């Protein structure tokens, strides 16, 4: 048989990269249409935050004082805008609660039964009950989204809401682009950089997550940008633009979500390692060293006040640590985290999903062993990134794991339960580091580049089918069939 011939332009990396980004964007737009309004985790609260930030400064309407309700059974009880509450009530399902069998009461046409009422656009879109139920103030993601909300203020909530979802997909598309740049800079070839970016683009949870309104979308972008900054520092040294990139990413993250405190910790540790190496080799002058230390101290001081770390640390209850670890590090809880990291695997009791999950775990365990082998081996593998990058990615994974589990432990100490929990989406900010490590780890056993090449292509096929199967055969039937 003859070899497969393709037109030359199809093989150009610019074309393939564009294909990765455009197809990811289209899949994301499809997912925004697939998920009903306010369906994402705390999505109504995030949208209410955007509406709150879009309110005029002068509050000319009557404001009622009403404490924020914890009961989630009735949206009218939340301190949301009238528009959010009325819209949700008009699209409500026939079935109570968040059960998987609840579906919208559909009409026979392309227009929903209450759609015209929603499009009249005459409900109040400001918060009448204070304090408003919002996801933090002065958050960069919500601030950016409030620009869209204000710019399209004359249109119905359906247009404003779904445009903001589409904006979030653009953030995901930017993450994929950064993934390609990161993989290229750590030493992967053009082909493997494209393959890895494509594999991540088909990770179901990754694309689902960016089709919701949530500040985690900007957080993931901040993590990707920070990873790139640090990779460039590792590659080219402590140049001003690389440091600035990492610092900018850190600031974007810190003004987006508290989780980004992890980035500050990693950055301090990262710089300390670099300085230690330079001091050891007498390669550093005192002035930049002092300037960096002062800058970091200032940052730590600002953000310890911003996140009230002193109270957090003084409130730590080490007596509960043993119980927390015993109860949280179980196979069952790890399974929940894993199922929600890879997609909506918990939506089906199909044994096939358990098989997929255990298959992924097996690959990850093999990779973890492989990473250990690579780190302790003196032999350099040609087509793999240097050890310093691998160590950095491991540090990122460890820091986020510790950070999330630290907060989970704090909540556990206060409530005695897993009120915060460790849903898989919390770990998405490190998806690039995670996937790079998985494929690098396999190389320890595959040895030859040819097998590495096949493993990446099989990984791409697996993730491609996984995406289509989960979205077409699980998510779509759940809402519409």
């Amino acid at each position, binding site marked *: 048989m003859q070899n497969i011939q393709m037109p030359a332009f199809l093989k150009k990396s610019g074309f393939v990269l564009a294909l990765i980004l455009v197809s990811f964007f289209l899949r994301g737009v499809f997912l925004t249409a697939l998920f009903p309004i306010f369906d994402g985790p705390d999505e109504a609260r995030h949208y209410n935050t955007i509406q709150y930030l879009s309110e005029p400064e002068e509050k000319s309407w009557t404001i009622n004082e009403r404490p924020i309700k914890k009961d989630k059974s009735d949206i009218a009880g939340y301190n949301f805008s009238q528009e959010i509450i009325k819209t949700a009530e008009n699209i409500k399902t026939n079935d109570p609660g968040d059960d998987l069998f609840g579906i*919208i009461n559909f009409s026979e046409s392309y227009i929903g039964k209450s759609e015209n009422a929603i499009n009249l656009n005459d409900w109040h879109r400001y918060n009448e009950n204070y304090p408003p139920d919002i996801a933090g103030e002065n958050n960069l993601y919500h601030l950016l989204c409030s620009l869209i909300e204000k710019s399209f203020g004359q249109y119905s909530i*359906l247009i404003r809401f779904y445009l903001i979802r589409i904006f979030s997909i653009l953030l995901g598309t930017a993450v994929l682009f950064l993934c390609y740049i990161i993989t290229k800079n750590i030493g992967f070839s053009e082909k493997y950089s494209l393959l890895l970016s494509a594999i991540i683009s088909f990770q179901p949870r990754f694309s689902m997550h960016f089709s919701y309104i949530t500040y985690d979308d900007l957080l993931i972008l901040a993590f990707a940008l920070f990873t790139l900054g640090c990779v460039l520092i590792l590659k080219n040294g402590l140049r001003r633009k690389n440091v600035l990139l990492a610092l900018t990413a850190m600031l974007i993250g810190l003004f987006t979500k508290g989780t980004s405190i992890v980035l500050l910790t990693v950055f301090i540790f990262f710089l300390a390692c670099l300085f230690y190496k330079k001091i050891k080799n007498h390669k550093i002058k005192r002035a930049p060293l002092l300037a960096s230390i002062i800058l970091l101290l200032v940052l730590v001081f600002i953000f310890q006040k911003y996140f009230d770390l002193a109270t957090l640390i003084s409130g730590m209850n080490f007596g509960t640590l043993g119980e927390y670890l015993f109860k949280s590090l179980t196979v069952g809880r790890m399974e929940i985290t894993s199922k929600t990291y890879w997609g909506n695997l918990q939506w089906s009791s199909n044994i096939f999903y358990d098989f997929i999950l255990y298959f992924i775990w097996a690959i990850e365990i093999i990779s973890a062993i492989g990473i250990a082998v690579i780190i302790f081996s003196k032999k350099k593998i040609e087509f793999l990134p240097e050890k310093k990058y691998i160590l950095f990615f491991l540090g990122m994974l460890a820091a986020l794991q510790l950070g999330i589990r630290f907060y989970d432990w704090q909540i556990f100490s206060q409530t005695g339960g897993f009120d915060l929990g460790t849903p898989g989406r919390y770990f998405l900010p490190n998806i690039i580091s995670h996937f790079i490590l998985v494929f690098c780890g396999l190389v320890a056993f595959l040895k030859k580049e040819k097998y590495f090449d096949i493993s990446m292509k099989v990984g791409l096929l697996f993730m491609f089918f996984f995406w289509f199967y989960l979205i077409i055969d699980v998510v779509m039937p759940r809402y519409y069939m």
Partner: protein
Amino acid sequence: MRHLSEKKILLLILLFGLLLVFYKFISVFYFPDSDWKMSREQKIELEVNKPVIQKFRSDKNNLAALEFLFGRSSLKKVNGKIHFQILEENCTEKIADSYLTPQDINPDDSNAFTFDKIADSENKIYCLKLIFEASDSKTKNPFVFTNPNDSSDNVSLVDVSGNELKNQSLSMRPAYKSDTFWQDATELNKRISQYKPWFLKQYFLGFIIISLMLLSVLLVAILLVI
């Protein structure tokens, strides 16, 4: 086979996998009647070999499935299968039957008994029987749920003891197919389009779906062969 390069094998896997995904999709390509309410208000235990009988009216043609809710608590200890039969109104002439095992059941979701679509089902009354067939004597009994009956489409419900439960119906939903695949695809497009802005509706939605499919397959095919 030995003449096939690994690239061609990977492309064949891509093609075969896509066919599998769409084959599975076709198997669930029916549309539950969203006017029917489902809830977990009261439960009925399915005792071994004693049928629960529900009579209901089909609102449309092409009745193709019936969805039910099953209880969670005893499911892991259920040894056997649930036999579903759909019969004519007089409960004697069988039209179709099907089975669900406890492994098939997701207690958090509705679970469908599917059968070959009944073409002229509109406004006809059907009798359905749910019968638990145990495979050993140690089994626990599964249970299904009932709703208060507020629809004339739910004609009557008889429990395992043969008593008619007044103003109650099984927590269930009939589901329908269309005459052609294209009509089903249009129905799906209609459902997704509802409560969406104009740029995610109807033709735009169709364009997005077709484009993402083509571009995604093209992307993977290119990456497999470069």
